C-alpha cells in the first residue's frame, strides 16, 4: 500500500499543470471572487441599508394607561403599585422598538418612518420602503401583561417585506428576533411577503449577537475549496487510465498484488491529497486574507473533522471513477467529470453563490453532493461551532461516500485471474 501511495503522490507533485488546477487556481478564484463580491456579503454595510415603515394600530398612551388601571385594581401595596406603574410607562415596547432603530449603530443602516397601514402598503408597493413593521392592536397591552404579570398571552409583531429572501430582510428579521428576546416576550414575529395576506407565523428565536456573518472571503474560500477537491477524483482516474494504456497496470497485475489493493490505494491517495489541499487552501487563505479570525484549537478541530470527512468522500468518488475508467478502458470518464460534472456539482452545491433563492429540488440535490454537504457543514461551523449541528451534513457526506465505494467495488474489473 505504501509503495502505491508514495508513487501516486510523487506523480502528482511532478505534474505542474495538475498542481496548478488543484492549488493555484482555487486560490486565484478565492482572491478574485473574495475581493470583487465583498459588497454582496456582510463586509460592506452599504449593501444592507434599508428604509422601513412603522405602523402602529394602537394608541400607546391609552394601552399604558389601561395597564396602569389594571395594576391599581389588583390591590397590591401602594409602593408596588407605583413601581409597576412606572415600569409600564418606561418599558413600553413600542417606545423601546423606536429607540432601538434610533440607536447610533442601527440608524446608519435603517431609516424608520411612522405611517398608517394604507400608506405603508402603498410605499411598499411603490418600493419606496423595503419593509413594514406593524404593531397590531393590543400589542403593547399583551406585551406589558407578559412582562409585568407573567401572563402567557402571546403578542406578535408583523413584518411585511417586498423580498423575503433578501439579505436586508434577513438582517431586519434578526434584529426583531433579538428585540423580542431582549424584552423577554413570549412573542413571535410573523413574516409575510408583500403579496400575502396577514397570517400568523410562529418561528424559533435565534440570537444574532453570538455569530458573525459570513464574509465573501469565507464564502469563496470554502466554496472554491469544496469544488476544487473534486478535481482530485479526475486526476487520480486520469492516472489510472495512463497506467492502463502504458501497460503499467499489467505490470502491477503481474506482481500478484490484489487488484483491490490497487483500488484502495487510489482512494487513500485521493483522500490524502484532498486533506493536504484543504489544509493548504484554508491556511493560506487565513494567512493572506484573514479569512478565519478564530484561532482556537476547537475551531480548527471542527474544520479538520469536516475536511477529513470530505476527503474520505472524494477518495471514494475517485475509486468509483478509477473503476469505471478501467472497465471502459477509456479516458472519457475523467475528461467528462472535470470538463462538466464538477461545474454542475459546484453550482448545485452552492460553491458559486448561495442557493437560497433556488428551487427546493436543486437545493436538495446540492445537499446530497459531497461538496454541497461539506459547504453546509463548514458554514454551520463558522456561524455556530456546535458539533451537534454538524452531524446531519457529515452523515450525508458519509452516506454518499459509502454509495460511491460500493459502486466502485461492483464496477472494478477484478483481473486477478487470467483475464
Amino acid at each position, binding site marked *: 500500500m*505504501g*509503495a502505491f501511495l*508514495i*508513487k501516486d503522490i*510523487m*506523480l502528482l507533485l*511532478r*505534474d505542474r499543470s495538475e498542481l496548478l488546477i488543484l492549488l493555484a487556481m482555487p486560490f486565484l478564484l478565492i482572491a478574485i471572487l473574495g475581493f470583487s463580491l465583498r459588497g454582496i456579503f456582510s463586509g460592506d454595510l452599504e449593501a444592507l441599508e434599508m428604509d422601513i415603515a412603522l405602523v402602529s394600530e394602537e394608541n400607546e398612551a391609552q394601552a399604558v394607561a389601561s395597564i396602569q388601571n389594571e395594576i391599581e385594581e389588583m390591590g397590591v401595596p401602594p409602593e408596588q403599585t407605583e413601581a409597576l406603574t412606572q415600569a409600564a410607562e418606561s418599558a413600553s415596547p413600542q417606545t423601546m422598538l423606536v429607540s432601538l432603530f434610533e440607536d447610533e449603530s442601527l440608524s446608519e443602516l435603517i431609516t424608520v418612518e411612522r405611517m398608517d397601514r394604507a400608506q405603508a402598503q402603498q410605499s411598499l408597493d411603490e418600493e419606496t420602503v423595503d419593509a413594514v413593521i406593524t404593531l397590531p392592536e393590543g400589542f403593547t397591552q399583551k406585551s406589558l401583561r407578559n412582562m409585568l404579570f407573567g401572563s402567557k398571552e402571546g403578542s406578535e409583531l408583523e413584518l411585511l417585506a417586498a423580498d423575503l429572501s433578501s439579505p436586508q430582510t434577513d438582517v431586519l428579521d434578526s434584529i426583531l428576533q433579538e428585540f423580542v428576546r431582549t424584552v423577554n416576550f413570549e412573542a413571535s414575529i410573523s413574516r409575510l411577503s408583500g403579496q400575502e395576506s396577514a397570517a400568523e407565523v410562529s418561528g424559533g428565536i435565534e440570537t444574532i449577537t453570538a455569530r458573525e456573518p459570513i464574509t465573501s472571503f469565507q464564502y469563496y474560500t470554502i466554496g472554491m475549496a469544496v469544488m476544487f477537491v473534486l478535481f482530485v477524483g479526475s486526476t487520480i482516474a486520469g492516472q489510472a487510465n495512463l497506467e492502463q494504456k*502504458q*501497460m*503499467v497496470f*499489467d*505490470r*502491477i*497485475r*503481474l*506482481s*500478484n*498484488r490484489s487488484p483491490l489493493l490497487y483500488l484502495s490505494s487510489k482512494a487513500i491517495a485521493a483522500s490524502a491529497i484532498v486533506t493536504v489541499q484543504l489544509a493548504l487552501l484554508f491556511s493560506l487563505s487565513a494567512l493572506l486574507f484573514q479569512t478565519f479570525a478564530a484561532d482556537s484549537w476547537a475551531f480548527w478541530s471542527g474544520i479538520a473533522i469536516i475536511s477529513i470527512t470530505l476527503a474520505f468522500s472524494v477518495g471514494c468518488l475517485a475509486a468509483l471513477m478509477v473503476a469505471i475508467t478501467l472497465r471502459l478502458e477509456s479516458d472519457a470518464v475523467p475528461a467528462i467529470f472535470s470538463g462538466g460534472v464538477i461545474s454542475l456539482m459546484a453550482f448545485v452545491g452552492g460553491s458559486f453563490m448561495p442557493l437560497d433563492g433556488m428551487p427546493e429540488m436543486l437545493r436538495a440535490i446540492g445537499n446530497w453532493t459531497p461538496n454541497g454537504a461539506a459547504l453546509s457543514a463548514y458554514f454551520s461551523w463558522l456561524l455556530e461551532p456546535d458539533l451537534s449541528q454538524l452531524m446531519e451534513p457529515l452523515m450525508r457526506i458519509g452516506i454518499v461516500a459509502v454509495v460511491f465505494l460500493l459502486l466502485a467495488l461492483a464496477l472494478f474489473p477484478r483481473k486477478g*485471474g*487470467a*483475464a
Partner: protein
Amino acid sequence: MLETDKLTKQFKDTIAVDDVSLVLKRGESVGLLGPNGAGKSTAIAMISTLMKPSSGDVRLNGKSVLKKPDDMRRVLGVVPQKIALYEELSAYENLKFFGRLYGLSGNKLEQRIEYVLELVGLADRKKELVKNYSGGMQRRVNLAAAMMHEPEVLIMDEPTVGIDPQSRNHLLETIRKLNRDEGMTVLYTSHYMEEVEKLCDRVYIMDHGKVIAEGTKEELKAILSDQETVLIEFDQNYPELFKKLSEIEGVQHSTIEEQSLKLIIPRGTRMLAALFHEAERYGAQVINVNVQTPTLEDVFLRLTGRKLRD
C-alpha cells in the same frame, strides 16, 4: 518447464491465435518469429496470464496456470512492447516501486536495484526522469523493471522496436548474458530475423495466428538445405529483365529489391551462366553476385511467400 497446449484466442470474427502449442525447456532461449499482426503479442499476453484464452491451456511445470496464475506470475519477468514505466519518475524510483510490489525492501531492494541498473548499463544515470531518456535507454529500464524479482523466465515482446543500433546491441548482449551466464529461460518475440538468429536456440515461426514451423535454427534452415540463394545486384532496376529472370526454369522464388534480385534456386544448379547471358541481352550491368546459404528470413519467405517486415 513452460508449455502451451492448443492455445487459441478469438476476437469476434477474428482468430488472433490459432491452436498454438509451444514448449520452453529450462534454460532455453526460444524465439517467436513472425511479421506484425502474426499473433505473437496475443500469444505472449495469454502465456503471461494477462489474457484469458478462448481455448487451450498454459502450463508451468505441468500445472495449468489459467485458474491460479500466481505461481506463473512469480517466475515470470515480462518485458512488454510498450514502455511500461512511469515517465515522470526516475529509473531508480520506477525500479524501487516495482521492487516493493514484489515485496523487496531495505538493503535487498537497494542491492537489486543496483544490480539491474548495472546489468542494463544505466547505474550512472539512475536519477534522471524516464521521460528524459532516449528510446533505447527507456527500453533498457523496461527490461530492468521486469528483472527486479529475479524471474526464472523472461518473456520479451519486441523489446528492440524503434531503438538505435547501439542500444539494440546492448540489449541483445544483456539478454544473451542472462540466458547463457545465468541460465535464465527466455522467450523472445520479434520480427527481426537477425535478432532471433543471434539469440535463440530454437525458433517458432508464426503467421496469421498459427505456428507454421518450429525447430532449431539449423533444422529450420534445413528446410532450404537443397536450395541456395543468389543475390544479383544491377546498376539499376530492370523490371522486364527481373521478370524474365524470375521465370527461368528452376527458379523457386524471387524477390525484387530496388536494383537487386534475389532468387532461390536448387543447390548445385548451374544457372549463373544463363542469368548472365540474359542480362547481357538486355544490356544490363551486373555489379555484384552473391551466392548465400539460406537465412531464417529465406525460410520465412519460402513458407509464407512474404517477407517478415511486410
